Protein backbone atom coordinates (compact mmCIF):
# COMPACT_ATOMS: atom_id res chain seq x y z
CA UNK A 1 0.00 0.00 0.00
CA UNK A 2 1.35 3.42 -0.91
CA UNK A 3 -1.26 5.66 0.69
CA UNK A 4 -4.34 5.54 2.87
CA UNK A 5 -6.94 8.26 2.36
CA UNK A 6 -9.61 8.67 4.98
CA UNK A 7 -12.89 9.37 3.19
CA UNK A 8 -15.32 9.48 6.15
CA UNK A 9 -14.90 8.54 9.83
CA UNK A 10 -15.42 4.86 9.00
CA UNK A 11 -14.34 4.65 5.40
CA UNK A 12 -10.90 4.82 3.87
CA UNK A 13 -9.37 4.26 0.45
CA UNK A 14 -6.25 2.19 0.09
CA UNK A 15 -4.01 3.22 -2.78
CA UNK A 16 -2.09 0.20 -3.98
CA UNK A 17 0.87 -0.28 -6.20
CA UNK A 18 0.26 -3.67 -7.84
CA UNK A 19 3.14 -5.06 -9.88
CA UNK A 20 2.01 -6.52 -13.21
CA UNK A 21 -1.53 -5.23 -12.87
CA UNK A 22 -3.09 -5.58 -16.30
CA UNK A 23 -5.87 -3.08 -15.89
CA UNK A 24 -9.53 -3.42 -15.05
CA UNK A 25 -13.04 -2.31 -16.01
CA UNK A 26 -15.14 0.08 -13.94
CA UNK A 27 -17.40 -1.96 -11.66
CA UNK A 28 -15.04 -4.86 -11.08
CA UNK A 29 -13.74 -5.91 -7.69
CA UNK A 30 -10.76 -7.64 -6.12
CA UNK A 31 -10.72 -10.42 -3.55
CA UNK A 32 -8.44 -9.57 -0.64
CA UNK A 33 -7.04 -12.43 1.39
CA UNK A 34 -5.46 -12.04 4.81
CA UNK A 35 -3.32 -14.70 6.46
CA UNK A 36 -2.46 -14.72 10.16
CA UNK A 37 0.81 -16.22 11.31
CA UNK A 38 -0.92 -19.40 12.46
CA UNK A 39 -2.24 -19.91 8.95
CA UNK A 40 -5.77 -18.69 9.64
CA UNK A 41 -7.18 -16.98 6.56
CA UNK A 42 -10.03 -14.61 5.87
CA UNK A 43 -11.11 -13.30 2.50
CA UNK A 44 -13.45 -10.51 1.38
CA UNK A 45 -14.32 -8.80 -1.89
CA UNK A 46 -13.84 -5.05 -2.33
CA UNK A 47 -14.90 -2.98 -5.30
CA UNK A 48 -12.24 -1.10 -7.19
CA UNK A 49 -12.76 2.64 -6.74
CA UNK A 50 -10.21 3.86 -9.26
CA UNK A 51 -10.84 4.39 -12.95
CA UNK A 52 -9.16 2.01 -15.41
CA UNK A 53 -7.17 5.04 -16.58
CA UNK A 54 -5.70 5.71 -13.13
CA UNK A 55 -2.08 4.67 -12.72
CA UNK A 56 -2.67 3.15 -9.28
CA UNK A 57 -5.32 0.81 -7.98
CA UNK A 58 -7.64 2.09 -5.26
CA UNK A 59 -10.10 0.17 -3.16
CA UNK A 60 -12.44 1.84 -0.69
CA UNK A 61 -13.24 -0.05 2.51
CA UNK A 62 -15.87 0.60 5.13
CA UNK A 63 -14.71 -0.42 8.59
CA UNK A 64 -17.44 -2.56 10.12
CA UNK A 65 -17.83 -2.73 13.90
CA UNK A 66 -17.74 -6.50 14.19
CA UNK A 67 -15.85 -7.03 10.99
CA UNK A 68 -12.88 -9.29 10.69
CA UNK A 69 -11.09 -8.00 7.60
CA UNK A 70 -12.19 -4.36 7.39
CA UNK A 71 -10.80 -3.29 10.80
CA UNK A 72 -7.45 -4.67 9.64
CA UNK A 73 -7.49 -2.83 6.30
CA UNK A 74 -8.74 0.38 7.86
CA UNK A 75 -6.77 0.58 11.04
CA UNK A 76 -3.78 -1.75 10.94
CA UNK A 77 -2.33 -1.68 7.42
CA UNK A 78 0.54 0.79 7.08
CA UNK A 79 2.19 2.36 4.09
CA UNK A 80 4.65 -0.19 2.73
CA UNK A 81 2.66 -3.22 3.89
CA UNK A 82 1.75 -5.84 1.33
CA UNK A 83 -1.81 -6.99 0.79
CA UNK A 84 -2.64 -10.18 -1.06
CA UNK A 85 -5.34 -9.76 -3.68
CA UNK A 86 -6.62 -11.40 -6.83
CA UNK A 87 -8.48 -9.78 -9.64
CA UNK A 88 -9.91 -7.90 -11.30
CA UNK A 89 -13.08 -9.95 -11.06
CA UNK A 90 -16.44 -9.46 -12.68
CA UNK A 91 -17.92 -9.03 -16.11
CA UNK A 92 -21.58 -8.57 -15.36
CA UNK A 93 -21.48 -5.45 -13.22
CA UNK A 94 -19.27 -3.43 -15.54
CA UNK A 95 -19.73 -0.15 -17.44
CA UNK A 96 -17.54 1.09 -20.25
CA UNK A 97 -17.67 4.45 -22.00
CA UNK A 98 -18.47 2.72 -25.26
CA UNK A 99 -21.93 2.25 -23.79
CA UNK A 100 -23.39 5.56 -24.89
CA UNK A 101 -26.92 5.47 -23.49
CA UNK A 102 -27.74 7.68 -20.49
CA UNK A 103 -26.37 6.18 -17.31
CA UNK A 104 -28.27 5.92 -14.03
CA UNK A 105 -26.32 4.97 -10.91
CA UNK A 106 -28.11 4.16 -7.66
CA UNK A 107 -25.97 3.69 -4.55
CA UNK A 108 -26.75 2.61 -1.01
CA UNK A 109 -23.95 3.35 1.48
CA UNK A 110 -20.65 1.78 0.42
CA UNK A 111 -22.40 0.58 -2.74
CA UNK A 112 -21.20 3.87 -4.21
CA UNK A 113 -17.67 2.50 -4.63
CA UNK A 114 -17.97 0.63 -7.95
CA UNK A 115 -20.24 3.40 -9.26
CA UNK A 116 -17.54 5.94 -8.44
CA UNK A 117 -15.13 3.92 -10.56
CA UNK A 118 -17.64 4.31 -13.40
CA UNK A 119 -17.90 8.08 -12.86
CA UNK A 120 -14.12 8.40 -12.71
CA UNK A 121 -13.77 6.29 -15.87
CA UNK A 122 -16.26 8.56 -17.61
CA UNK A 123 -14.27 11.68 -16.65
CA UNK A 124 -10.88 10.18 -17.45
CA UNK A 125 -12.03 9.03 -20.87
CA UNK A 126 -13.54 12.42 -21.66
CA UNK A 127 -16.92 10.81 -22.26
CA UNK A 128 -20.04 12.89 -22.87
CA UNK A 129 -22.49 10.21 -21.74
CA UNK A 130 -25.15 11.79 -19.55
CA UNK A 131 -24.99 10.36 -16.04
CA UNK A 132 -27.09 10.65 -12.91
CA UNK A 133 -26.20 9.32 -9.48
CA UNK A 134 -28.79 8.81 -6.76
CA UNK A 135 -26.84 8.20 -3.56
CA UNK A 136 -28.39 7.17 -0.27
CA UNK A 137 -26.43 7.53 2.99
CA UNK A 138 -27.34 7.62 6.66
CA UNK A 139 -25.93 11.03 7.54
CA UNK A 140 -23.89 13.73 5.81
CA UNK A 141 -20.75 12.41 7.53
CA UNK A 142 -21.25 9.08 5.78
CA UNK A 143 -21.20 10.46 2.25
CA UNK A 144 -18.09 9.02 0.61
CA UNK A 145 -16.30 11.11 -2.06
CA UNK A 146 -18.59 14.07 -1.41
CA UNK A 147 -16.12 16.78 -2.42
CA UNK A 148 -15.22 15.02 -5.63
CA UNK A 149 -18.85 14.31 -6.49
CA UNK A 150 -19.87 17.92 -5.84
CA UNK A 151 -17.02 19.14 -7.99
CA UNK A 152 -17.93 16.85 -10.88
CA UNK A 153 -21.61 17.73 -10.57
CA UNK A 154 -20.96 21.44 -10.73
CA UNK A 155 -18.44 21.29 -13.53
CA UNK A 156 -21.07 21.48 -16.22
CA UNK A 157 -20.07 18.07 -17.48
CA UNK A 158 -23.52 16.47 -17.63
CA UNK A 159 -23.29 14.56 -14.36
CA UNK A 160 -26.06 15.10 -11.81
CA UNK A 161 -25.79 13.90 -8.23
CA UNK A 162 -28.81 13.60 -5.95
CA UNK A 163 -28.14 12.75 -2.31
CA UNK A 164 -30.58 11.42 0.19
CA UNK A 165 -29.89 11.09 3.90
CA UNK A 166 -32.04 8.59 5.69
CA UNK A 167 -31.15 9.01 9.34
CA UNK A 168 -30.24 12.64 10.03
CA UNK A 169 -29.73 15.79 7.99
CA UNK A 170 -27.62 18.84 8.72
CA UNK A 171 -29.36 22.19 8.96
CA UNK A 172 -29.83 23.87 5.57
CA UNK A 173 -29.71 20.47 3.88
CA UNK A 174 -31.05 20.73 0.36
CA UNK A 175 -31.05 17.07 -0.66
CA UNK A 176 -33.64 14.38 -0.04
CA UNK A 177 -34.24 13.26 3.52
CA UNK A 178 -35.79 9.80 3.36
CA UNK A 179 -35.34 6.28 2.03
CA UNK A 180 -35.51 5.90 -1.71
CA UNK A 181 -39.11 5.65 -2.87
CA UNK A 182 -41.17 5.83 -6.02
CA UNK A 183 -41.43 9.63 -6.13
CA UNK A 184 -37.72 10.13 -5.61
CA UNK A 185 -36.84 7.67 -8.33
CA UNK A 186 -39.32 9.25 -10.70
CA UNK A 187 -37.75 12.65 -10.12
CA UNK A 188 -34.16 11.56 -10.49
CA UNK A 189 -34.08 8.68 -12.92
CA UNK A 190 -33.87 9.05 -16.67
CA UNK A 191 -37.17 8.48 -18.41
CA UNK A 192 -37.43 4.96 -19.74
CA UNK A 193 -37.83 6.25 -23.29
CA UNK A 194 -34.13 7.07 -23.36
CA UNK A 195 -33.34 3.38 -22.89
CA UNK A 196 -31.00 4.12 -20.01
CA UNK A 197 -28.54 1.67 -18.48
CA UNK A 198 -28.90 1.43 -14.69
CA UNK A 199 -26.44 0.12 -12.09
CA UNK A 200 -27.66 -0.40 -8.53
CA UNK A 201 -25.28 -1.33 -5.72
CA UNK A 202 -25.51 -1.59 -1.95
CA UNK A 203 -26.90 -3.87 0.75
CA UNK A 204 -29.21 -6.61 -0.52
CA UNK A 205 -32.46 -5.12 0.77
CA UNK A 206 -31.60 -1.68 -0.65
CA UNK A 207 -30.77 -3.06 -4.06
CA UNK A 208 -33.86 -5.24 -4.30
CA UNK A 209 -36.06 -2.33 -3.34
CA UNK A 210 -34.41 0.19 -5.69
CA UNK A 211 -34.31 -2.22 -8.62
CA UNK A 212 -37.98 -2.94 -8.08
CA UNK A 213 -38.75 0.78 -8.24
CA UNK A 214 -36.91 1.08 -11.54
CA UNK A 215 -38.87 -1.82 -12.97
CA UNK A 216 -42.07 -0.12 -11.82
CA UNK A 217 -40.92 2.98 -13.65
CA UNK A 218 -40.79 0.97 -16.84
CA UNK A 219 -37.08 0.25 -17.04
CA UNK A 220 -36.16 -2.85 -19.00
CA UNK A 221 -35.05 -5.38 -16.35
CA UNK A 222 -32.24 -6.45 -18.67
CA UNK A 223 -30.88 -2.92 -18.51
CA UNK A 224 -30.76 -2.84 -14.72
CA UNK A 225 -27.59 -4.38 -13.34
CA UNK A 226 -27.33 -5.07 -9.65
CA UNK A 227 -24.63 -5.88 -7.15
CA UNK A 228 -25.77 -6.85 -3.67
CA UNK A 229 -23.41 -6.68 -0.74
CA UNK A 230 -24.31 -8.58 2.42
CA UNK A 231 -25.16 -6.20 5.20
CA UNK A 232 -22.05 -7.32 7.01
CA UNK A 233 -19.35 -7.30 4.38
CA UNK A 234 -16.73 -7.93 7.06
Amino acid at each position, binding site marked *: MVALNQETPRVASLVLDVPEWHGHDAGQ*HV*DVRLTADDGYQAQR*SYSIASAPEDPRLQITVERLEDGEVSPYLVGEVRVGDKVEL*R*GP*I*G*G*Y*FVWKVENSTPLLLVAGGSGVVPLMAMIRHRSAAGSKVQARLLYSSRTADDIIYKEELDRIASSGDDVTVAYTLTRAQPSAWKGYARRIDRDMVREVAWPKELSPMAFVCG*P*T*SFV*ESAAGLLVDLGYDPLRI*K*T*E*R*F*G*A*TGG
Partner: protein
Amino acid sequence: MDAAEAKVDGNAIGGLLREIFVMEMTTAETTCASCGAVNPVGRVDVYLRAPGVVVRCPGCEQVLMRIVRGPGRYWIDLRGMRCLEFAASE
Protein backbone atom coordinates in the same frame (compact mmCIF):
# COMPACT_ATOMS: atom_id res chain seq x y z
CA MET B 1 -28.95 -10.73 10.62
CA ASP B 2 -32.04 -11.63 8.67
CA ALA B 3 -32.40 -13.67 5.54
CA ALA B 4 -32.10 -10.68 3.21
CA GLU B 5 -28.76 -9.77 4.69
CA ALA B 6 -27.36 -13.28 4.39
CA LYS B 7 -28.08 -13.27 0.67
CA VAL B 8 -25.76 -11.71 -1.88
CA ASP B 9 -25.49 -12.36 -5.61
CA GLY B 10 -23.32 -14.08 -8.18
CA ASN B 11 -20.93 -11.11 -8.34
CA ALA B 12 -19.66 -12.26 -4.95
CA ILE B 13 -18.50 -15.61 -6.33
CA GLY B 14 -16.90 -14.19 -9.47
CA GLY B 15 -13.46 -15.07 -8.09
CA LEU B 16 -14.43 -18.60 -7.01
CA LEU B 17 -16.07 -19.36 -10.37
CA ARG B 18 -13.02 -18.11 -12.22
CA GLU B 19 -10.91 -20.54 -10.16
CA ILE B 20 -13.18 -23.38 -11.22
CA PHE B 21 -14.11 -22.51 -14.80
CA VAL B 22 -10.94 -20.55 -15.53
CA MET B 23 -13.12 -17.89 -17.15
CA GLU B 24 -15.14 -14.87 -16.13
CA MET B 25 -18.55 -16.35 -15.31
CA THR B 26 -20.71 -13.56 -13.89
CA THR B 27 -22.08 -12.86 -17.36
CA ALA B 28 -22.86 -16.55 -18.00
CA GLU B 29 -26.57 -17.22 -18.33
CA THR B 30 -28.15 -19.93 -16.18
CA THR B 31 -31.42 -21.69 -16.95
CA CYS B 32 -33.15 -22.92 -13.82
CA ALA B 33 -34.02 -26.62 -14.03
CA SER B 34 -37.05 -26.02 -11.80
CA CYS B 35 -38.79 -22.99 -13.24
CA GLY B 36 -36.92 -22.28 -16.46
CA ALA B 37 -35.96 -18.73 -15.52
CA VAL B 38 -32.87 -17.43 -17.29
CA ASN B 39 -30.55 -15.13 -15.33
CA PRO B 40 -26.96 -14.00 -15.61
CA VAL B 41 -24.85 -15.37 -12.76
CA GLY B 42 -24.41 -11.80 -11.51
CA ARG B 43 -28.08 -11.74 -10.72
CA VAL B 44 -28.70 -15.08 -8.99
CA ASP B 45 -29.01 -15.40 -5.22
CA VAL B 46 -25.88 -16.57 -3.45
CA TYR B 47 -25.51 -17.76 0.13
CA LEU B 48 -21.86 -17.65 1.16
CA ARG B 49 -22.17 -18.14 4.88
CA ALA B 50 -22.58 -21.88 4.82
CA PRO B 51 -20.35 -24.98 4.78
CA GLY B 52 -20.34 -24.41 1.02
CA VAL B 53 -21.66 -21.91 -1.48
CA VAL B 54 -25.32 -22.30 -2.35
CA VAL B 55 -26.59 -20.56 -5.48
CA ARG B 56 -30.35 -20.23 -5.89
CA CYS B 57 -32.73 -19.06 -8.59
CA PRO B 58 -33.90 -15.53 -7.76
CA GLY B 59 -37.36 -16.43 -9.05
CA CYS B 60 -38.21 -19.75 -7.43
CA GLU B 61 -35.39 -20.06 -4.83
CA GLN B 62 -34.54 -23.60 -5.88
CA VAL B 63 -30.87 -24.55 -5.73
CA LEU B 64 -29.00 -23.88 -8.99
CA MET B 65 -25.51 -24.84 -7.86
CA ARG B 66 -23.69 -26.07 -4.78
CA ILE B 67 -19.95 -25.58 -4.49
CA VAL B 68 -17.83 -27.08 -1.71
CA ARG B 69 -14.14 -26.43 -1.48
CA GLY B 70 -12.24 -29.17 0.32
CA PRO B 71 -8.50 -29.60 0.76
CA GLY B 72 -7.14 -29.58 -2.77
CA ARG B 73 -10.48 -30.24 -4.47
CA TYR B 74 -13.94 -28.92 -5.30
CA TRP B 75 -17.29 -30.63 -5.35
CA ILE B 76 -19.79 -28.96 -7.62
CA ASP B 77 -23.41 -29.85 -8.21
CA LEU B 78 -24.87 -28.18 -11.26
CA ARG B 79 -28.06 -30.23 -11.49
CA GLY B 80 -30.20 -27.26 -10.56
CA MET B 81 -29.26 -25.63 -13.86
CA ARG B 82 -30.68 -27.11 -17.00
CA CYS B 83 -28.14 -25.20 -18.97
CA LEU B 84 -25.27 -22.78 -18.53
CA GLU B 85 -24.39 -20.55 -21.47
CA PHE B 86 -21.29 -18.44 -21.75
CA ALA B 87 -19.15 -16.87 -24.44
CA ALA B 88 -16.06 -18.74 -25.56
CA SER B 89 -12.82 -16.91 -24.88
CA GLU B 90 -11.12 -15.68 -27.97
